[in-house]
């Protein structure tokens, strides 16, 4: 009888994995960039077109890089959380305006409020590509030595800010 139990054994094994699979999200792809230094970049700064934001600008600080665009509707959902976070002054937020434009970005920030200490403008999206951006909004947390510590794809919720982002910020300070 033992060899006839083999099909059942295989099925049980598959069923266990399927069960685990129910509680996983196949869409969520962890970024291979976590634990690595941020890619090098040098982009024009919004509203100060002569100056640039580079990958070295914020060395020595713990900072949040938030990828946004005026055409991105989910960014609007996230925006109030960022305003709230900025008003608490616990961490510096830098914006990466992704595949958008100087004027539209400025208008959007003028209309909804500007939580960013600085905004780098990435019109052709190449720097975004180096950051592995694929679903705007995206948020990165970068430590003092310029290493990416955390990444969130899609809009941040207030609980994620409270429970994930801020404790990490504290520990990196």
């Amino acid at each position, binding site marked *: 009888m033992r060899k006839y139990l083999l099909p*059942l054994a295989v099925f049980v094994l598959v069923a266990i994995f399927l069960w685990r699979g*129910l509680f996983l999200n196949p869409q969520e*792809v962890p970024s291979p960039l976590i634990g690595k230094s941020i890619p090098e970049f040098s982009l024009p700064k919004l509203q100060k077109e002569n100056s640039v934001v580079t990958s070295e600008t914020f060395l020595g600080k713990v900072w949040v890089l938030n990828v946004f665009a005026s055409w991105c509707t989910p960014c609007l959902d996230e925006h109030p959380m960022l305003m709230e976070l900025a008003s608490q002054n616990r961490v510096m937020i830098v914006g990466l305006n992704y595949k958008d434009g100087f004027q539209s970005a400025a208008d959007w920030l003028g209309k909804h409020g500007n939580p960013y200490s600085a905004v780098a403008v990435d019109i052709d999206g190449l720097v975004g590509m180096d950051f592995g951006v694929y679903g705007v909004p995206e948020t990165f947390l970068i430590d003092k030595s310029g290493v990416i510590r955390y990444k969130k794809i899609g809009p941040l919720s207030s609980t994620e800010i409270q429970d994930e982002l801020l404790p990490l910020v504290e520990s990196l300070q």
Partner: protein
Amino acid sequence: MIPEIGHFSIILALWVSVAQTLICFGGAVRSSPRLIAFPRYSSYVIFLLTLAGFCCLATSFLVDDFSVLNVASNSNSQLPWPYKLAASWGSHEGSLLLWVLMLSGWMSAVSLFSKQMPDEMRSLILGVMSAIAIGFYLFMLLTSNPFDRLLPPAVDGRDLNPLLQDPGMVIHPPMLYMGYVGFSVVFAFAIGALISGKLDSTWARWSRPWTTAAWCFLTVGIALGSWWAYYELGWGGWWFWDPVENASFMPWLCGTALIHSLSVTEKRGSFKIWTVLLSIITFSLSLLGTFLVRSGVLTSVHAFATDPERGVFILGFLIVVIGASLLLFAWRAPKVGLGGNFNFISRESALLANNVLLVVAAASVLLGTLYPLFLDAMGLGKISVGPPYFDAIFFPLMAPAMFLMGIGPVLRWKNAKTLELATKLKWAFAISLVSAIIVPILMGGWSVFVSIGLLLGFWIVVSGLVNLLEQIRRIRMGSERTIFQVINSLPRSYYGMLVAHFGVAVFIFGVTLVKGYEEERDVKLAVGGSVELSGYRFSLASLDDLIGPNYNGIKGTVFVHGADGKLVSTLYPEKRFYHVQSMPMTEAAIDTGFFRDLYVSLGEALEDGSWVVRVYLKPFVDWIWGGAFLMALGGLLAISDKKYRSKRRSVPNQATVSS
């Protein structure tokens, strides 16, 4: 009111199924003739109740009753009525209702066409089927009720997914489900045989036509789905190894293996254990497919909106049904005998090898489909498994199976002689080999891949013809019959086998030639512009605004001229924008031909008013689906063989042939 009636009749159908299951198994235990007769009639009742429920849902869709949540989320007042009807199985809830409708339909069919079967056996089979039905009725009523009301009612509906607003999509799901659910009959036969211990060639004979019928539906369903993807998704692909496609392909592979192993079990009494296990596996894979599509464990282009609660329910159901049947198998299988012996070179061996290859192929598809999930569940990272993997694994496994297709039918049962085989087939092989070398050169470009593909295709066709001639010659020897009489005397199941195998060959030709010689260009075209593609000139003559019932868009007019300057075809590719779901859709325009398709689709609009246009030349692409339909036709011929219609009549008939 109508949705409540529908809801109520589904609840009634559930209770009748419960009663039927209890009575069937009770009857089997107490061997009471009165109990055993019950399911013959209750099966019809379940079917009629489910049909009533289905009609109620369809009515709600047709009359735009937006107080029903399902209608409000999947239909719209502007939707043309055939799509409103199709929308009733376009959602997860509605498709489940279609599923149980088909299950109860198959149940009634078993009840109707199994008069010559012993009552106890039929009762057991119907009991197993109604037990499966209970699971699905419960699943529908507890987690996905298609009749749920929406209060207050919506003003208008959110519309059917534009991808599904297509004639191919109207019939694809019913066909596919007929196949999936049809395997439940085969499964029930297997469980019935295991319980009763009557696992013999009679069981195989009963099982065969049902297996073939379900397989035919599944074949047509898969082919329609692939054809739909080809013209609807707008980039000319026809198979993507997407988890949902794989979910339908795995039962097909196992079903194909099952058809072949059943023939051995019927005629030689061998492979019984294997055949019964394969019956269970085939239906289990159909159930697994349902789980994969509806639980959200895998990402897919076609998946339904997902919900973990549903996933938990189906998985529980899967564990009960598959777990119990495999346990039953482990318990009863050791008592089943082995059947007739056979030599290494015999038709049994060839069919066994075919089975091994098909099942290993199905297992590989399963492995590739679930592997990302395995790794993720063990925390070993996220990977993707796609076409490059499946192509690399699948073709080496299938090529020998295709080769065996030429040999198997020529071999004798039990013991065949190698020399005899070689004499019969050496010319067939020579002809195939020469054709496989010459044809690619004539097509304009030789490659190993094309040559191997063609070799397999020609091999199947030529060896099939050799086999046919051989049969005719053998019967004519020592008889006065004319060729026509001889051809007429060969059983339909034999022709069915030949036609289905030719279907595979046609399919191989299609796949090989389209992969080997297709051409495509992505070009920027403004009105008046044109592009050349292997002798055809495609010119964009105009772009016009388009207003449809529930969409607007742009319609291009593309003239296609041949090398001689004559107009070959005028194509109208469209880019539609569906209002309600605010979703753009590419409607490709295709000039279908026996030897090639011309395919044009509009890509993206550019700032200067021109468009990115994709043009393709796809040689022999329609042979892919033509081959699949031939396979199904072969199955149909096999079912129509008279040996399945009346047992009494077929015995003297067979005596005359063998005399």
